[in-house]
């Protein structure tokens, strides 16, 4: 039966070109990661060198995206900024994913008072609007981009704990878990061999969809001056630095702005594709097909009747 449903799913994925979509988006995402890793060798200019003659210079052959108000090359700064953005977002998502899953699995598997305590704790965090909390915490800690990462992470992990816990509760009473327990399985073996592989799907989907949102959150905090600080080249802080030249030199805002936009777009699309593959239950694309088909059938028939009469 498992084989059967898998074949059906594979067929569906082939029909939708989902795998092709995944391949293209993965390639694009890897391209961004490549820029993040090797950025310092790709920049046409030194991102921190101030060329005062070039202050607020418009895009040209020499400076493809123009210069900011200190005469620094914007293209080089955007490229350099990729590193901060991508690495901080990846660390953040990985961190909340691991922490949340750990808490959720423990709460779900142990049950009892431990479950109650951990879930009440996560309820408290879930009671805060995410960015309100993140702004305040980042404002208190104050330590560059990593303070922003901690602030967002602190408020975001309970979502993963919730998902992990509900997944564990769903599989906990399966026969194979009891069988593993009866054959003397250690708790850590139980965790990583029997529980984790079976609950990972929804968690990975959530994490993949979260990367884009987290990039935006971190850039937003940097924009408010609560993340990466000038002169560090980071997209959010670059935009906040250039706010005063919005009218005279809009490219100083547009360059980092579109960098955030394109990056988030690619990671969002990638997350969506991963969801389509891993989470067939969430597949809503075919839902409603019946309605459309029958509607067409009915209208066809009506038309036929009309032409006949």
């Amino acid at each position, binding site marked *: 039966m498992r084989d059967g449903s898998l074949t059906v799913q594979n067929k569906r994925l082939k029909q939708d070109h989902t795998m092709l979509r995944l391949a293209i988006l993965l390639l694009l995402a890897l391209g961004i990661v490549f820029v993040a890793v090797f950025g310092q060798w790709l920049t046409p200019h030194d991102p921190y060198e101030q060329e005062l003659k070039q202050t607020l210079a418009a895009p040209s052959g020499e400076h493809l995206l123009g210069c900011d108000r200190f005469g620094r090359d914007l293209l080089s700064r955007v490229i350099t900024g990729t590193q901060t953005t991508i690495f901080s977002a990846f660390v953040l998502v990985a961190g909340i994913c691991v922490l949340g899953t750990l808490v959720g699995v423990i709460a779900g598997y142990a049950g009892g008072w431990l479950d109650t305590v951990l879930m009440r704790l996560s309820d408290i965090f879930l009671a805060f609007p995410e960015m309100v*909390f993140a*702004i305040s915490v980042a404002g208190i800690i104050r330590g560059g981009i990593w303070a922003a990462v901690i602030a967002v992470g602190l408020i975001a992990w309970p979502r993963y704990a919730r998902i992990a816990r509900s997944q564990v509760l769903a599989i906990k009473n399966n026969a194979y878990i009891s069988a593993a327990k009866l054959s003397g399985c250690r708790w850590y073996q139980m965790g990583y061999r029997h529980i984790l592989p079976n609950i990972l799907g929804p968690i990975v989907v959530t994490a993949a969809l979260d990367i884009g949102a987290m990039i935006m959150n971190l850039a937003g905090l940097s924009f408010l001056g609560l993340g990466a600080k000038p002169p560090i080249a980071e997209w959010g802080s670059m935009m906040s630095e250039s706010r005063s030249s*919005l009218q005279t030199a809009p490219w100083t805002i547009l360059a980092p702005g579109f960098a955030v936009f394109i990056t988030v777009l690619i990671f969002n699309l990638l997350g969506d594709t991963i969801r389509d593959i891993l989470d067939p239950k969430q597949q809503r694309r075919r839902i409603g097909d019946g309605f459309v088909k029958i509607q067409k059938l009915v209208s066809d028939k009506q038309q036929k009747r009309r032409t006949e009469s």
Partner: protein
Amino acid sequence: MIWRYAVKRVLQLIPILFGITLLSYALMQSASADTVDMMMQKRGMLITPENQAVMRHEMGLDQPFILQYFQWLGKIFTGDMGYSYLKNMDVFPLFMKALPSTLLLTLSSMVVTVCISVPLGILSAVRQNKITDYVIRFFSFIGNALPGFFVALLLLLVFALWLGWLPVTGNHGFVSILLPTFTLAIAMSAKYTRQVRATVLEELNKDYVMGCLARGVKGRTILLANVLKNSMLTIVTLLALSIGSLLGGTAIVESIFMWPGVGSLAVDAIGNRDYAIIQVYVIWMAVIYVGINLITDLIYHFLDPRIRMQGEG
């Protein structure tokens, strides 16, 4: 029955409120070393270890944490939420003065969001996998990937600076609310259109829709009389639940447009390390958020006959 459920939900809220205040207090406490130094500078005292100890004693900072917390909680209940060094006044009236602006902005962007995304979401669902659907989904993807502050700056650039139709910042009556409203509404509509689409599609796929079609009821009648009526509850609930992201999102947008709400108040306060304002901001935003969620949940229970009847039957 609904009353018993309401009482139960309100009682569940009490530990959450304790948690919110405790967490906020702990956070501010971690910044209290700063506060002592800042107070001493304000009063022109020399910062020596002895003076610091005196000051800490005066502020009650040498007592056990839990004791301090309860003393502070008692003060909150009497309306004393601390003093702003920056504005030289109690923070509570300061916050309450700024709150209406934020609520107005939240409300107006909700209205715009509903006006944009409900029709588009329904249209996209009915025309599923046709060109209209693809265009709507394309734009909702774009809107989802645009950070609020970038949208704000783009709108400023186009409508205020290039076209000169709207004022750049500040509060000049009706027109100045337009840009912040649309900034918030664009991001929210993008997300919400997809949710409306998914909800309507799910409803369209139910058996009764096919049954009606088979009996010859017109597609439009089914859509308006049954499908929309049935999916409205979910649509409204999803909207209420997205208020949380809106309350957080206003902070950045407010500070860009210098909208005099609680968000820009808090951002200014962070810049000046005025922790009392931040504290009042965090606590009240959480309380408002929790309150909205509670009301949504109760309305949902009240309106959905399936859930309402459960207890009675």
